[in-house]
């Protein structure tokens, strides 16, 4: 590689890497990429886990590495950053909109979904605090009677 790509360029590349469990949002949307910086000729990417036991964490690291190596980055270091902990506030606006379109209600400060992602109905009930991945809970809409997943607010 003759010239180091800019940090903005790298962020753009990472914005094309899908979340392994919810592929409609990117790793940048998810908010797990805390920092991208050059230290000499080494590219350092700071990654924060969503849930401490989330099995996707190692897949995320692998996907970052693959994406950047494909772009010709040779010296790459991934660092885990625990503090400050990830919260759903780190989700981007673009990511929240994509989640809802996909059928997953985006997190709300009130702690529950504000409307059904299928029909927009507001008469909702919680089925379970947990869902198919550590980051989601199960809800149901009483208007259209469809179940849906809600991205938990932490």
């Amino acid at each position: 590689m003759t010239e180091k790509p800019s940090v903005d360029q790298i962020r753009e590349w990472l914005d094309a890497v899908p979340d392994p469990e919810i592929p409609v949002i990117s790793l940048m949307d998810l908010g797990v990429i805390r920092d991208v910086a050059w230290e000499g000729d080494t590219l350092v990417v700071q990654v924060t886990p969503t849930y401490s036991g989330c099995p996707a964490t190692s897949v995320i690291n692998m996907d970052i590495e693959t994406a950047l190596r494909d772009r010709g980055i040779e010296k790459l270091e991934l660092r885990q950053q625990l503090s400050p902990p990830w919260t759903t506030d780190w989700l981007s606006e673009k990511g929240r909109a994509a989640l809802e379109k996909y059928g997953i209600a985006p997190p709300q400060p009130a702690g529950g979904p504000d409307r059904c992602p299928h029909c927009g109905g507001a008469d909702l009930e919680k089925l379970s605090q947990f869902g198919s991945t550590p980051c989601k809970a199960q809800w149901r809409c009483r208007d259209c009677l469809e179940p849906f997943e809600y991205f938990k607010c932490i």
Partner: protein
Amino acid sequence: MAEVDKDKLYQFLLRMGDNTLILGHRVSEWCGHSPVLEEDIALANTALDLIGQTQMWLGYAGEVQGEGKSADDLAFLRDAWDFRNVLLVELPNGDFGRTMMRQFLYDAWSSIMLGHLQKSTDERIAAIAAKASKEAAYHVERSSGTVVGLGDGTEESHNRMQAALDYLWPYVGEMFASDEIDLAMAAAGIAPDPANLRDEYDALVGRVLDEATLAIPAGNYVHKGGRDGRMHTEHLGHLLCEMQWLQRAYPGCEW
């Protein structure tokens, strides 16, 4: 950070990590066996959070110990007498009610303990606690809700929850029994003296059990011996036998 004896810090980290490891394994035993699908998923997710927290605690323990051991080495290659978890978390699951009562009694302690640890003078411990306490708050919300739902439920569910509380209550005291390791952590500002958390715990647990129409059994007897490794119950060996089997049969085997 004040100077602290490395071995004492290592022991403290083992206590934190062994609690989450052993409870995480116990809870994972429900996978595929829960009364309803939602509970199965919830228990598996809880177990996953606990195992994730274990990686952080035991990962740091291995670094402090300084013998090049990973979290996996500590989890899979130690014997029963080297574990430092409280006896409460190694007890068998029993029925669903007992599992949820055990979870609640642990979650209540864990959410309080992690709240204090966020102010630790050890930055790494403060960061782990900040991460884990978000999960612990979510766990205690669910386990306390389930204890209330089943305790103040049918006659059958009430009786089972009262029996679970009667069985588990004598194991609660060990979480608050401090020794010289705790005092050294408290003096260095690394962790609170667990004895000082008891009032906060009794208030939280008392409120939930009241709502659940359950009565704390009389008697002050406390089962101890887990967090200092003096004497575990016979159940821990059986649990390790299953949990450690792969690494024992095929040492160094990698995923």
